[in-house]
């Protein structure tokens, strides 16, 4: 499995498929930071933007390998492991983006106290008094990371092979995942924004996280099942 993860990570790095998600995420969280009035809002926004970005990063990984190369890997290591490695590398890339988003929020957003002291050190000192906001931001980020990966796995090859339909469905599902309370990401974000107060600690609850984990497991299982039965004759994917 380590060898497969290294192989897929090398494909992600060397194919430059990470550049577009990185730029898109950077732009989105910069815009969000400019319009946010508190740290809690900034962290919520950077978590929310992870959903479409991770969904498209997952798509990038699922379409990166040519059919013939995928077939060789499948014979060598098995289709299930090969597909899981692909999804895991996209998830890992999304986790790195999520961590970067949280760090960006912590360093740039208004501190949760009225202290006027400037500089990163005093900001971090101010945060130390409000660990709840940071923990809530981390959990919301995790929920959004999982929902983004689930959307990417469900609406892209091998489950949805037509490129146009896959891209539109991925975008629509990402928007729905943020806007609807049915989605764990939507629920987590709605909860934190309803209770938002610049100094309050607002833990989104374990329910959205548990739901996101279940969603991830189901969609990854479906994608992996489809990968084992893939019609390797078709070359229309991507």
């Amino acid at each position: 499995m380590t060898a497969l993860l290294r192989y897929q990570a090398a494909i992600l790095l060397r194919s430059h498929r990470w550049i577009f998600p990185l730029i898109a995420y950077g732009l989105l969280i910069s815009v969000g930071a400019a319009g946010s009035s508190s740290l809690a809002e900034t962290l919520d926004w950077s978590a929310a933007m992870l959903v479409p970005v991770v969904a498209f990063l997952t798509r990038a990984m699922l379409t990166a390998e040519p059919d013939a190369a995928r077939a060789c890997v499948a014979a060598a290591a098995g289709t299930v492991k090969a597909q899981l490695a692909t999804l895991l590398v996209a998830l890992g890339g999304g986790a790195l983006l999520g961590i970067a988003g949280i760090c960006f929020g912590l360093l740039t957003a208004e501190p949760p106290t009225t202290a006027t002291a400037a500089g990163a050190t005093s900001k971090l000192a101010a945060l130390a008094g409000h660990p709840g906001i940071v923990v809530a931001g981390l959990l919301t980020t995790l929920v959004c990371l999982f929902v983004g990966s689930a959307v990417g796995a469900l609406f892209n090859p091998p489950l949805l092979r037509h490129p146009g339909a896959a891209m539109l469905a991925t975008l629509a599902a990402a928007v729905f995942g943020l806007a609807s309370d049915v989605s764990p990401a939507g629920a987590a974000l709605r909860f934190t924004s309803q209770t938002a107060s610049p100094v309050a600690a607002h833990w989104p609850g374990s329910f959205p996280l548990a739901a996101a984990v279940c969603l991830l497991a189901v969609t990854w299982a479906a994608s992996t099942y489809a990968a084992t039965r893939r019609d390797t004759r078709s070359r229309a994917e991507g």
Partner: protein
Amino acid sequence: MRLETVGKRYGVRQPWVVRDVSADLPAGRLIRVEGRNGSGKSTLLRVIAGVTAASAGRVCGRPARTGYVPERFPGGLPFSGREYLVHMARVHGLRGAAGTGAVDEWLDRLGAAGYADQPLRSLSKGMCQKIAISQALLPRPGLLVLDEAWTGLDQAARGALDAAAMERAATGGTVLFVDHDAARLAGHADERWRLGGDGHVTVLPGDNAPRPGRPTAGDPAGYPTADDPADDPAAGRTVVTIELAGVEDGSLSSLATLPGVLACTGTGNRVVRVAASHSDDVLREVLAWDGVRVVSVGPAGDR
């Protein structure tokens, strides 16, 4: 390894591409799969290699190390040939020096070493094919599946792949191949699997000369057991040349006395002329010797 009523279709409303295939694939067997275009040869090979799952029945006892060579290997990966092969060696479970050693060996045997550091995208079809073949042979696979793997290769590489396929079978691997050239590995296939247009497979005896002590009954229905080689008028008439590297002077006499060996010439690489009826046994024997490599195998008069 065994196929139990294996069937494959790409969707529940799609027609069966392959259906009801039951066969044994014992170790050491070289099997030619034949049939018209679109008869399901590639699909059958993919199911056996584990690239795609069977829709019905099951494939049992697939060896741990499986190598698959697709009919086309477009260089769409962002690596050089050597980088790709080192990744594939790790995927096959070969770490560190074992992996890089195997990569160098196969690049060398297929004549691809000179181009291996160029990006895959810039390589010609033939060079990409050599990389695809190398990745399948890296782990000395217990199951080797070749889907028209010879297409686009130069003559030297075709010979090297012939030798590699026979070497796998001679050392206990199972080899399945499809090739449009009816003369490919002629005289060496243990069985021929013929795919009718309806997806059914008929197992026919191969065109190799029979060898004593080797089971030939793979078909449950049972095809006639081949005669003893001594009674076979065709056996022994055909001569095969085997080019070997790394044969020490001390081993020459034992090489010359192997059954079926007619002549042994050459100073660096030894060229051995063997009766076709004994070529597989000679190959199997010399491959067990330390340091000996098969450089090529061909009909007599080839060189």
